[in-house]
């Protein structure tokens, strides 16, 4: 196997992490916590203070915190002082509306500065912030706004008209909708800009318990409703530590995170970590376009680039010639997350950028990077790397009665588990204590991901332990897709699986059993696809729908998605390991 050897120090700027083993021995979370400022007068720990206010009070006040590249080609800079004032205004705005501690402030936005203002202002006001994916259709939005009991929603006029207006009577908790753009605000909404300008520029964050819930991030399970993972203000300790270690992020860096804010990466590493470190965040409103991406890396002299395997594979597909037109020498580290990065992609990056791509692993529930490849550590292409200093990982097997067994033999496949207690560990699933409790055993968090560890301590992703689909870095719950298909008057049963895809990891495929007397034709096929896309949005909706006479079921009537998948891939139906191996 090819190993990419790394010198401990390969450039003018020394890495934050030089000696991995030494860091693992000496690191404590207590030290990491003490490196943060904390609110004045022992007022506790608040993400907004660490991310902007303390910089706005110090020598970074006039430094660019956020550089927004809008869709029209314009550039707008926000200094730390300006972000601090704008988020003060938003916190005051919330108080004027009577929105208080613990209430849910949601956004359905793309990559726009209002996202930062809303998030930071919500934390200052002790409200809970939740960003939802703007490409979700009305149904995933409704489910998440309802479970999160959203009280305030910040969105655009277009999204409101197309997706939210129709849901208003199903969302009794949603009191205020703030619209960031457009000349006329739709009925039942308020104008974000007008209210923000009318709100005062000063705000003092009151004492904040580090355990206070700051964030809700939704994720998908195999069955049932989406899960709202709760994160505390203390998570910022893990955000800054992991960004320093795994992303080598340093003050003043030009930093570009391509993740959508609707996913945990877009908030943990798109907003919180880089601001807390004092970097310059590049926020690109536009969608992926390969030539423009290279140009952005050059023009913004990006030092640290955090992206996703799907994006890297799209760039690979377009070939490496394009890159030669650009000066990409500012890059110091490239990292990716969302799904395992195949070895070819790691090596392709090295060829094109002169730097390998550093894969890392974490989940919505872990809140921060847990296992990573580091700038000064050798890379084994295809491996997710080694646990972050401060994180204890293991490969385990679930036993009877809530016990686990640690599988210490190298190369044994089991469930990836983490010793509980790191600061960004989720504190619960909203309204679902039983589901939360099921994630833990014997003091370990059980990730639901299957992996193995080699003799050198590197971890390798094997597959999901459940039926959750990983597509373009997003977790998609098959149940949510099946439920929407079943809403269609022609569908009697539905089973949804992920099929391997060379670009996006897995693509969503649905099988349906039509009601008696009906048969699938082009018109119905299109109608079903359109229905699913309208309700779920393009990323969650199936790209393929196939009719079957019947679906494989257990005796209790549960659809056996694994059998569907095995049949589709031509694998033995009972042989799960063969299936998993084929994906790794």
């Amino acid at each position, binding site marked *: 196997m090819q190993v990419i050897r790394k010198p401990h120090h390969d450039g003018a700027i020394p890495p934050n992490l030089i000696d991995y083993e030494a860091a693992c021995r000496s690191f404590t979370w207590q030290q990491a916590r003490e490196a943060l400022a904390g609110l004045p007068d022992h007022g506790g720990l608040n993400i907004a203070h660490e991310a902007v206010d303390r910089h706005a009070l110090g020598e970074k006040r006039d430094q660019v915190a956020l550089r927004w590249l809008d869709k029209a080609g314009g550039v707008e800079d926000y200094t730390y002082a300006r972000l601090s004032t704008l988020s003060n205004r938003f916190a005051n705005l919330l108080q004027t509306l009577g929105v208080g501690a613990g209430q849910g402030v949601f956004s359905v936005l793309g990559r726009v500065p209002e996202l930062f203002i809303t998030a930071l202002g919500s934390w200052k006001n002790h409200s809970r912030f939740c960003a939802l994916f703007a490409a979700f259709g009305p149904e995933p939005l409704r489910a998440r706004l309802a479970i999160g009991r959203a009280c305030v929603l910040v969105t655009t006029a277009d999204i409101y008209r197309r997706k939210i207006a129709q849901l208003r009577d199903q969302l009794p908790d949603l009191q205020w909708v703030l619209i960031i753009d457009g000349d006329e605000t739709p009925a039942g909404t308020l104008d974000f800009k007008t209210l923000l300008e009318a709100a005062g520029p000063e705000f003092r964050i009151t004492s904040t318990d580090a355990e206070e819930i700051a964030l809700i991030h939704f994720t998908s399970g195999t069955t049932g409703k989406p899960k709202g993972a709760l994160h505390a203000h203390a998570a910022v300790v893990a955000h800054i530590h992991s960004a320093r270690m795994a992303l080598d992020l340093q003050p003043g860096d030009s930093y570009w995170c391509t993740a959508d804010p609707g996913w945990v990466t877009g908030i943990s590493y798109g907003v919180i970590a880089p601001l807390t470190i004092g970097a310059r965040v590049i926020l690109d409103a536009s*969608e992926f*376009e390969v030539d423009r991406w290279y140009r952005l890396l050059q023009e913004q002299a990006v030092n640290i680039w955090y992206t996703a395997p799907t994006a890297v594979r*799209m760039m690979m597909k*377009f070939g490496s010639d394009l890159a030669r037109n650009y000066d990409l020498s500012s890059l110091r580290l490239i990292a990716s997350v969302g799904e395992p990065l195949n070895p070819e992609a790691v090596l392709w990056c090295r060829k094109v950028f002169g730097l390998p791509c550093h894969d890392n692993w974490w989940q919505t529930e872990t809140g921060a990077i847990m296992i990573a490849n580091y700038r000064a550590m050798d890379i084994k292409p295809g491996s997710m790397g080694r646990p972050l200093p401060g994180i204890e990982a293991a490969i385990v097997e679930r036993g009877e009665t809530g016990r686990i067994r640690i599988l210490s033999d190298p190369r044994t496949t089991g469930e990836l588990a983490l010793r509980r207690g790191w600061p960004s560990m989720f504190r619960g699933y909203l309204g679902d204590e039983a589901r939360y409790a099921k994630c833990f055993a014997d003091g370990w968090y059980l990730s639901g991901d299957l992996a193995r560890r080699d003799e050198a301590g590197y971890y390798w992703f094997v597959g999901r332990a459940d039926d959750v689909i990983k597509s373009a870095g997003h977790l998609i719950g098959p149940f949510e897709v099946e439920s929407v298909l079943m809403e269609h008057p022609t569908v009697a049963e539905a089973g949804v699986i992920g099929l391997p895809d060379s*670009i996006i990891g897995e*693509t969503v495929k649905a099988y349906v059993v039509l009601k008696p007397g009906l048969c699938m034709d082009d018109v119905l096929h*299109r109608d079903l696809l*359109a229905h699913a896309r*309208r309700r779920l949005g393009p*990323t969650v909706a199936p790209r393929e729908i196939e009719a079957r006479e019947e679906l494989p079921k257990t005796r209790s009537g549960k659809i056996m998605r694994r059998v569907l998948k095995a049949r589709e891939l031509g694998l033995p139906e009972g042989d799960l390991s063969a299936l998993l191996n084929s994906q790794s």
Partner: protein
Amino acid sequence: MNREEIETIVLEVMLSIIPEMEPSTLDARVSFRDQVEMDSVDYLNFVLTLEKRLGIRIPEIDYPRLSSLDGSIAYLLKVLAEGTSADPP
């Protein structure tokens, strides 16, 4: 192939990928992605299906030129008239 024929094909291909699209409400000058829900995988499928349907190869660097209906028609007219790609890589 004339403009109308190309427009028909572009719309048919779009509809096969974005079946919920309403062609009558589409503004031909505005990018598809600003009007309909379309992610980057949809966009890739759109271009690849056009390639297959028209028997041409569209270099990746030209993908952005196909982002609106007018853009697609102008680009494809040029490519088909020249019998080669509009802007060889």
